[in-house]
């Protein structure tokens, strides 16, 4: 007997806004969150383009001991989780009496690590790093800090799966609850946004250099795309069993019905159509749905020539006959990397709630593969009952999630 798994809370902190309302407005308006960080040029970056994400002000909200262990991405995750728990009606007194877990996607804490090593090299004394450094530097900085701050007593670890980290965190949370191992899990993804984090990625010439038009630089599926734009923040979703949500009187926002995953078993950075198709089909099979049941696909498409081409082919192979609406919200956000798989579920949930599909901005001319897809160039009024979200990462890790409206 499997449990039904529902989403009861959402939270977001990123370049489209610092809460659900701001982000909904940006999505509907097709507003880009991309700008420039000129410091990156001084560091030798090819591209200074980046998602512009505000720094949360935590003094006055959290005490010193809680604050100093938070890395940049953990600060974003705290803000997103605070919002998600609030709208899931999970207050601290309830959380302390129940077994709430956390599975969060994160795959670097480069700024904290780099700054600590710089200090050691200069001071030649590790005791001058301060007590927060270790808790900021580990990949599990988000789960380690949030589990302490929110006094969580359930499952507690970080998922590191490159740009599919956030998506797999939701998929694994879904499985844990479905199989009855947990009732409530905080899932999500976080991504730091600073020059320490993206130098090696920039070094692969993977980033767009269209610096004269920052808001037009991220153009997934467009034939003139020249690379992705790094971005970040954090997105949180509260997953719980349907029974638990009903018992608590929590708002049931949607149901997670399908999780598909696969590994390409090939190149470390190149995409692979077969691996993506297997992930898509597995998600559909798990959900007990067919391609025609999907109303909207939030594509992984990052605006790289090879990656978008492979995904367009994979989507066409599975959905070619029914052609659901497709858009990549990365056209507005840039690539939120470890966060993207979670944030794109949040974006799609906001579209589902408000009956529209956000546009794939800057999609002006298709290439031969994207021409076969039904891409939303502009904001499209649309009732969404079921959507699918793709996330693919380096190493060939693929994840597809299917979310359904609860009627």
């Amino acid at each position, binding site marked *: 007997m499997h449990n039904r798994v529902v989403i009861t809370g959402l939270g977001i902190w990123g370049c489209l806004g610092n809460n659900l309302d701001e982000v909904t407005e940006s999505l509907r308006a097709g507003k880009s969150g991309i700008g420039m960080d000129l410091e990156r040029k001084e560091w030798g970056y090819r591209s200074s383009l980046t998602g512009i994400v505000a720094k949360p002000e935590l003094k006055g909200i959290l*005490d*010193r*001991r809680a604050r100093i262990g938070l890395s940049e991405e953990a600060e974003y995750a705290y803000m997103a989780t605070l919002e998600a728990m609030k709208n899931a009606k999970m207050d601290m007194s309830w959380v302390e009496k129940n077994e709430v877990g956390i599975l969060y996607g994160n795959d670097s804490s480069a700024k904290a690590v780099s700054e600590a090593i710089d200090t050691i090299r200069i001071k030649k*004394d590790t*005791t*001058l*790093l*301060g*007590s927060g450094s270790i808790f900021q530097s580990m990949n599990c900085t988000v789960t380690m800090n949030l589990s302490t701050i929110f006094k969580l007593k359930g499952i507690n670890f970080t998922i590191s799966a490159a740009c599919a980290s956030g998506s797999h965190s939701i998929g694994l949370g879904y499985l844990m609850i479905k199989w009855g191992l947990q009732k409530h899990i905080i899932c999500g993804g976080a991504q730091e946004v600073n020059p320490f984090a993206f130098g090696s990625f920039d070094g692969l010439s993977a980033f767009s250099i269209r610096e004269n038009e920052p808001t037009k630089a991220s153009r997934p599926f467009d034939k003139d795309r020249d690379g992705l734009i790094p971005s970040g923040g954090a997105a949180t979703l509260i997953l719980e069993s349907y029974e638990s949500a009903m018992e608590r009187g929590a708002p049931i926002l949607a149901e997670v019905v399908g999780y598909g995953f696969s590994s390409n078993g090939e190149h470390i950075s190149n995409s692979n159509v077969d691996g993506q198709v297997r992930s898509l089909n597995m998600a559909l099979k798990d959900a007990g749905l067919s391609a025609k049941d999907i109303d909207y696909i939030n594509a992984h498409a990052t605006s790289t020539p090879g990656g978008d081409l492979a995904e367009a082919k994979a989507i066409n192979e599975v959905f070619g006959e029914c052609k659901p609406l497709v858009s990549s919200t990365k056209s507005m956000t840039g690539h939120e990397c470890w966060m993207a798989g979670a944030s794109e579920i949040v974006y799609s949930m906001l579209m589902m709630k408000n009956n529209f599909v956000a546009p794939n901005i800057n999609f002006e001319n298709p290439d031969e593969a994207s021409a076969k897809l039904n891409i939303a160039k502009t904001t499209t009024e649309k009732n969404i009952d079921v959507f699918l979200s793709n996330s693919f990462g380096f190493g060939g890790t693929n994840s597809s999630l299917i979310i359904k409206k609860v009627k």
Partner: protein
Amino acid sequence: MTQAEIIERINGFLVDEFEVDAEKINPDENLRETLGLDSLDYVDLVVIIESNFGFKVVAEDFINIHTFQNFYDYVGRKVAEKATA
């Protein structure tokens, strides 16, 4: 740096960084009890003293520091030693 300047700077970072209520800072009060320091806080105290006064505290030095006045005097001595070194 005068002793008054040292005291002002110490009280400043205790209020700003360690979020100690300024009204609780009194020369005769017990430092550890007033600040509610745990083992991790001592690590941060070492860092903040080094960045403010340019010398490194060794853990054993804290053994004889009980009150705020002990702390001010200790830092004053170390700053003077450094100036004459």
